[in-house]
């Protein structure tokens, strides 16, 4: 009975745990994958809190392109400079605008009421955005702007339909268009439909792919993706700035507990001998 009940409990916990992935991260709206096979699935953002150069590049993009509207109001400049190993003077000269101090929280100068008038909504604070939506969502969102003349600001986003935000990174990326392409028919079992006589692949038109007009941006598509990954990495760091410190302390704590548990086991074993 003991074994049966134990296995039921384990099974139940497993059932709950299997739901883990469903709990985290938001789906990516109308985002179409590069091969046109999946819609609404985010691209994977491989964030790495130990990659300091990537975090530094991400901070640079953030301070130059995002901070005009989006605060990081729970974080302080000083801690960012320390964590990202950016020398104090360099940080002050290049990444702080206006008369803010190193110990200040990272605020924006814009008046929230005016911002609401301009964009329809106050631009949200982004300190915890990567925690709220997941890094994959942030990464995919950043790559999903496209020209849409029907919108007030002339742009739309595949991940966040009818978003109020302009495409601030247009200088870097260039002008992205939503285009149609001929793609193969793919059955659910993965088979590709072919012409029975010629054996040629049959295609159909599918719309919603994003294509950047060549030569309109400072970065080529690969470089832009790389830059957005850096920015996502920076936002993931923002949500959880203590990750590296936490995991290092955690490792020592676990080591200590392993030794403690081993010794307490030996003690337990000694006393157990008395009982039989």
């Amino acid at each position: 009975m003991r074994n049966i009940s134990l296995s039921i409990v384990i099974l139940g916990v497993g059932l709950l745990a299997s739901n883990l992935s469903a709990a985290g991260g938001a789906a990516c709206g109308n985002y179409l994958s590069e091969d046109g096979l999946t819609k609404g699935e985010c691209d994977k953002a491989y964030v790495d809190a130990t990659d300091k150069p990537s975090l530094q590049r991400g901070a640079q993009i953030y301070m130059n392109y995002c901070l005009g509207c989006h605060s990081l109001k729970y974080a302080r400049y000083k801690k960012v400079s320390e964590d990202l190993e950016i020398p104090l003077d360099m940080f002050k000269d290049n990444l702080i605008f206006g008369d803010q101090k190193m110990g200040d929280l990272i605020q924006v100068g814009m008046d929230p009421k005016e911002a609401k008038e301009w964009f329809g909504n106050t631009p949200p604070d982004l300190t915890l955005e990567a925690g709220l939506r997941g890094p994959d969502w942030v990464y995919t969102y950043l790559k999903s702007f496209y020209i849409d003349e029907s919108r007030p600001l002339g742009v739309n986003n595949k991940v966040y339909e009818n978003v109020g935000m302009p495409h601030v990174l247009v200088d870097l990326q260039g002008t992205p268009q939503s285009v149609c392409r001929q793609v193969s028919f793919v059955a659910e079992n993965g088979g590709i439909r072919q012409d029975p006589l010629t054996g040629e692949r049959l295609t159909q038109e599918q719309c919603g792919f994003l294509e950047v007009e060549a030569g309109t941006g400072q970065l080529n598509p690969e470089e832009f993706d790389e830059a957005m990954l850096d920015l996502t990495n920076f936002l993931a760091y923002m949500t959880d700035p203590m990750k590296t410190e936490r995991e290092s302390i955690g490792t020592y704590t676990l080591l200590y507990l392993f030794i403690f548990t081993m010794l307490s086991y030996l003690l337990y074993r000694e006393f157990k001998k008395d009982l039989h």
Partner: protein
Amino acid sequence: MVTKLMNWFDDRLPLTATIERHLTKYPAPINMNIWYLAGVLLVVVLVIQLASGIWLLMNYEPTAEGAFASIQYIMRDVQYGYIIRYMHTTGASAFFALIFLHMFRGMMYGSYQKPRELLWVLGWITYLLLCMLGFTGYVLPWGQMSFWAAQVIMSLFGSIPYIGEDLLTWIRGDYLISGITLTRLFAFHVVLLPLALIAVVFVHILALHEVGSNNPDGVDVKKFKDEDGVPLDTKPFFPYDITHDLYAIGVFLIFFVAIMFFYPDGGGYVIEYVNYEAADNLKTPEHIVPSWYYTPYYAMLRAITFPVLGLSAKFLGFVVMAAGIAIFVALPWLDRSPVKSIKYKGFYSKFFLTLFVISFFVLGYLGSVASTPLGTLLAQFFTVTYFSYFLLMPIYTKYETCKPVPDRIQLS
């Protein structure tokens, strides 16, 4: 010197006698198994929660304007503040995981039966207090999920016929969830409920030491005693149980610390992702999901989709949910079996207990996902099977055939 000091105290306070009675010489049955660890681990978690809670309190700001920012202040600017907070959030989940195991142990081995009815009732009260502590504590970070969970749970009181609306306003202290609601929940969470919890746990342990621990065989160890009056099939708590418990605490802390440092969100179960956004009373989150430890009861609440005799579905769901938590207290009087342990009970007891566990987990799962027509149907079915364990108990325990119980503990 030490002896003299002890004598000085013993003349003024039953110090040695108390220590011997409750710790060093407390007789524990020799066949206690892994299920008996949940109790001592619960005490460990209680201490963790009290200690981390006091330190959180030093920097938390209980106002609607400042609460969310003060949590981030603890996470970023307070030295090791994030460790203290993660200790408290992981501790909350551990508390419930352990109390469920502890209660299940009692159900499995009939630990609620005579003479342990009061012990069981006291334990049930600690479970109630824990539910309230969990709810009030969950609201304090004042994130989106805090706010909307409070909204949903409190609105249940509004569904009570006639007095509902007025009662709801009285409980909230306002016409909607506001800073006033936050401060009163804060007062309950940090003063009233912990005080009550400590007091009830203390009496729970007193009662345990009065009647003695049950054991997996459910036999009465006090029937056979040696010449000193110590039950034969027991071992003294010190040093045999304490070394055993120390080892168990070590293993438990390894898991606890692993979650705390490496997986503090627990995949959205320990800390929900929606709570990364500050409370906003104009923006409802897509799915409002309670913490995992309430999901079985949340599923029951949602399972009732039809009004009966003019009572609204919401009110009936509330009643069913409350009954699901309350019914545990009736167990000592529902069980008519001549034997305690599931080992010697008949087929039906085993069947219904298994059904209960399966229902609990399925309801827990259903309560954590968005509701669908099939999900509602399943939730209704498993709500019925959940209650059948309790409500049919007087019948199946009375008429089933049990195995004979040995006089003394049989060690295999």
